[in-house]
C-alpha cells in the first residue's frame, strides 16, 4: 500500500519532529558532545547567578534553622504560609516531567522523545526543591525522621489518618520512582558516553554508571517491559501525588479548602505550571545548546497547545469552585470566595485569574504558539499565576475563616522571600549542572524513532 502520507494536505501531514538529516551517529555527536567540552561563558554567568540565589536561600535557611520558624511570617491564624505555598508549587512543577516521560510514552506520542530526558530531570530537581519546605517548616528538621513509621522509643506510631502522613509517603515515593525511571532511561546513554570517552577517570565513572550495559536484545526485552511498566506506574503516581497534596487542604474544614474538585484541579494545575517551566527551560536550552533541530518549533507548539488545554481546564475548575461556592449557600465559603477577588488580598486573586486563564488564551493563535517571546511571556505569566493561586488558596482562606476575632493578616518576611529565591536558585543550578554533565536528550530513545531505524516487518512473523 502506497504510503498515505504523500497524499495528505499540508494541514494533516504528521508533525516534523526533526529538522534536517539526523543519523544515530550525528545524534550522538550533537547531544553527547557537551560533557566533553568546557561550557561557554554564558553558562558560567548563569551559574553565578543561580549560585548567588542559592546562597541567599541557604543563608536564610540557616537563619531559620538557628532562630526558628518565628523568622517566617507564619502565625495565627495563617499558620501555613510561604512554606506550604512553595512546597505545592515545586511539587506541581515536577509533574510535567512525569507527564511527558510517562503519560506521553503510554500514548506513543513521538514528540516526547526529544524532551523527555530534560523533563524527567526537571521533575527530580523540582521534587528536591519541594522537599526542603515541609522538612524546614517542622521547626526541628533534625527530627524529620519521626515522620516515618519505625518502631521507636516514643511509643507512638505516625497517624495514618492524616493527609500529612499520606504526603510523606506520596512525595518520597514520587521522588524514588522518578529517580529510578530517570536513571533507567540514562543507562543506555551512559553506555554511549562510556564508549565515546577515551580511557581515564571519566570513562570509569561512565562505566560504573552504565552498569556494563551492552545493548543486548535479551536485555532490551526486559528493559522495554520495565520501562512500560514504570511509565504506567509513574502515571498513576503523578495523579495520586498531587491529589494527596490537595488532600492536605480538601480534608479540612477551612472554607474554600473543602471542595471535592481539589484533586483533579490540583493535578491539572500542576501539569499546567510544570509545562510552563519546561517551556521556559527548553526555549533557552535549545538556543544555547544548538538543539533546535531536535527540539523543534513543533515541539514547542504542541507543548503550548497543552498549556492552553490546561488553562481551559483551570478555567472550568475556577468556574466550578466559584459557582459551587455560591450554590452551597454557605456564608463562610461565600465570604472566602469574595475575599479571593476583593479585599486586602484581592489583587492576588485577580492576578491568578489573569495569568492563568486570560493570558494563555493567546495560544489559540498559531503564530503566538510558535513565537519565542510570546511563549516565554505566557510561560512566565503561568508560573507567576500558579504560585499566586496557591497563595490565594492558602493565605486568603486562612486569614479570615470562621471566627472574626481570629482574623488577622499575613505578612511574609524577608526570610520567606529569601528561601523562595533560594529554591529557584537550587532548581536552576541543578538544571545547569545537568546540562553540563549529562546527556540532555535521550539519545537511545531518539535513535529508535529516526527514519529507517526500525524494520518494516518482522520477517516470518506477522
Amino acid at each position, binding site marked *: *500500500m502506497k*504510503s*498515505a*502520507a504523500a*497524499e*495528505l*494536505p499540508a*494541514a*494533516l501531514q504528521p508533525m516534523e519532529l526533526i529538522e534536517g538529516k539526523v543519523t544515530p551517529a550525528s545524534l550522538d555527536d550533537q547531544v553527547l558532545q557537551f560533557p566533553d567540552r568546557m561550557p561557554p561563558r554564558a553558562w558560567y554567568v548563569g551559574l553565578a547567578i543561580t549560585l548567588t540565589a542559592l546562597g541567599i536561600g541557604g543563608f536564610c535557611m540557616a537563619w531559620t534553622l538557628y532562630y526558628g520558624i518565628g523568622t517566617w511570617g507564619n502565625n495565627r491564624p495563617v499558620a501555613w504560609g510561604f512554606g506550604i505555598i512553595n512546597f505545592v508549587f515545586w511539587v506541581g512543577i515536577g509533574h510535567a516531567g512525569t507527564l511527558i516521560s510517562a503519560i506521553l510514552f*503510554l500514548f*506513543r506520542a513521538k514528540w516526547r522523545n526529544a524532551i523527555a530526558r530534560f523533563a524527567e530531570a526537571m521533575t527530580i530537581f523540582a521534587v528536591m526543591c519541594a522537599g526542603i519546605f515541609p522538612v524546614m517548616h517542622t521547626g526541628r528538621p533534625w527530627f524529620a525522621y519521626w515522620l516515618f513509621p519505625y518502631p521507636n522509643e516514643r511509643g507512638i506510631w505516625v497517624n495514618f489518618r492524616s493527609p500529612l502522613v499520606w504526603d510523606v509517603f506520596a512525595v518520597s515515593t514520587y521522588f524514588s520512582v522518578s529517580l529510578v525511571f530517570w536513571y533507567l532511561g540514562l543507562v543506555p546513554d551512559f553506555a554511549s558516553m562510556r564508549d565515546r570517552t577515551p580511557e581515564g577517570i571519566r570513562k570509569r565513572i561512565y562505566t560504573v554508571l552504565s552498569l556494563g550495559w551492552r545493548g543486548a536484545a535479551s536485555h532490551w526485552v526486559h528493559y522495554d517491559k520495565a520501562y512500560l511498566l514504570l511509565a504506567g506506574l509513574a502515571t*498513576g503516581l503523578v*495523579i*495520586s501525588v498531587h*491529589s494527596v497534596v490537595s*488532600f492536605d487542604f*480538601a*480534608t*479540612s*474544614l477551612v472554607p474554600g479548602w*473543602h*471542595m*471535592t*474538585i*481539589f*484533586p*483533579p484541579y490540583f493535578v491539572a494545575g500542576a501539569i499546567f505550571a510544570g509545562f510552563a517551566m519546561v517551556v521556559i527551560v527548553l526555549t533557552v536550552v535549545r538556543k544555547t545548546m544548538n538543539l533546535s533541530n531536535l527540539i523543534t518549533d513543533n515541539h514547542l507548539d504542541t507543548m503550548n497547545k497543552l498549556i492552553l*488545554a490546561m488553562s*481551559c481546564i483551570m478555567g*472550568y475548575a475556577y468556574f*466550578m*469552585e466559584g*459557582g*459551587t461556592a*455560591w*450554590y*452551597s*449557600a*454557605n456564608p463562610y465559603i461565600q465570604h472566602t470566595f469574595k475575599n479571593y477577588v476583593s479585599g486586602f488580598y484581592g489583587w492576588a486573586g485577580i492576578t491568578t485569574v489573569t495569568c492563568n486563564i486570560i493570558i494563555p488564551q493567546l495560544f489559540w493563535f498559531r503564530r503566538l504558539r510558535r513565537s519565542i517571546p510570546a511563549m516565554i511571556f505566557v510561560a512566565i505569566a503561568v508560573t507567576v499565576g500558579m504560585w499566586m493561586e496557591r497563595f490565594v488558596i492558602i493565605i486568603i482562606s486562612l486569614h479570615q475563616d470562621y471566627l472574626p476575632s481570629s482574623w488577622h493578616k499575613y505578612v511574609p518576611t524577608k526570610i520567606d522571600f529569601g528561601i523562595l529565591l533560594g529554591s529557584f536558585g537550587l532548581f536552576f543550578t541543578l538544571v545547569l549542572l545537568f546540562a553540563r554533565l549529562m546527556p540532555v536528550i535521550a539519545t537511545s530513545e531518539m535513535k529508535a524513532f529516526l527514519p529507517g531505524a526500525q524494520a518494516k516487518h518482522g520477517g516470518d512473523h506477522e
Partner: protein
Amino acid sequence: MTPNDAPRSPLARNALLAMTVVGAAGTAAAYLSAGPARFWANWILWTLFLLTIGLGNLFLVALERLVGAHWSVPMRRVPERIASLVPLAIPMLIIAFFGVPVLFPWTFPEAAHNPILMQKTPWLNLPFFAIRLAACALVWLLFYSFFVRGSLRQDASKDAAFTIKARKLAPLFMVAFFFTVTIVAFDWISGLEPEWYSDMFGVYLFAGTFLSGIAAMALGVLGLIRRNRLPDVKPKHFYNLGTLGLAFTVFYAYIGFAQYMLIWYANLPEEVVWFKHRIEGPWYPVAMLLPIFHFALPFFLLVGAVGKKSPKVLRIAMLSLLFAHFVDLYWLIFPTLGAQPLFGWPELAMGCLFLGLGFLQIRRAMGRGADMPVGDPLLAKGLEWQL
C-alpha cells in the same frame, strides 16, 4: 446520506420493534399504576443512560480530531453511529422536564420555607432550568450535526477540508462538552437533593460518560468485526480501546473515591447526607456493585496485554463497564424514591422501551454511510498504523 448495502436482518429489526412496543405498553402501565415519582425516576434514569452513552461517543469522535490520532480512524464510524443516541435522548430529556416538579424538592411548595433553597433560587428555578436544557440540547445537536453528518458527507466527497475543519472545531466542542455534562449532572442528578453540593460532581459524571462511551464503542467495533464488516480493523487497533478503557476505569475510580473520601473525612452533615442515603441499609449492596463492576473486574481484565488484544476478554470488560454505568446512574437517582431499592416490572418495561428505541436508532444509523469513514484522508494511515 447514501445508505450502505450491508446485510440487514429483518429478524433483529422485528425483535427490537416488538421489544419497543412491549416496553411502550409497560411504560404506559407504569405511568398509570407505579406512581408518578417512580415513573419519572425511571424516565430520567433511562434517558440519562442513553444520553451519556451517546455523548460519550460524540466525545470520542471529537477527541480523535483534537489529538490528531490515526489509530482510531478506521473505527470512527462506530462512535459516530452510537452518537445518534443523542438526538434520540434530547426529546426524551425534554419530556423528562415534566417530571421535574414531581421529583425535585426545589420545585415543591415547601421549598419556599427552606432558607437554604431560597438562596439557590436564582439557579434552581424552572424557567432557567428550561433555558439550560434548551441550550444544552442546541449545543449537542449542532456539534452532532457537524461531526457526524459532516463525516458521512465526506464518504462521498472525499474532501480533506472537512477533516481540517473538524480538527479546528474540536477544542470548542470540548469546552462545550464539559460545561453541558456538568449542567446535566447538577440539574438532573444532584438537584434531587438540592441542599447537597459537590463541585467534583460534573467531573464524576464526565468520567462515567466517557467510560460508557468507550465501552459502547468497543462493543460496537467487536460486534462488527464478528460479523466481518470491519475486515481491516485488527487487534492492534482495538488494543488502544482497551488501554483507554483501563486508563479511564482507574480515572473513574479515582474521582469516585476522592469525592467519597473527602466527604467522609470532613463529615459535614450537609454533605454526608448524600452518601448516607446511598450506602446505608438496603442500598449498601447496590453501592458495592460499583467498586466490583466499575473498577475491579475491568481493571484486572484490562491490565495485562492479553486482555486488550483478546476480543472475548475485552467484551466482558466492556459489558461490565456498561452494566456498572447503569448501576451507577440507578444508584445516584433512585435513592430519592426511598430507602428500599426499587427494581421491578416498571424498570424492566421502561428499559425495554428505551433500549429498544436506542438500538433501533443505532440500527438506523448503521444503514447510513460505509462502515469505515472511507472519505477521511487519514484512513490509510490509520489502517497501516503500527502498535
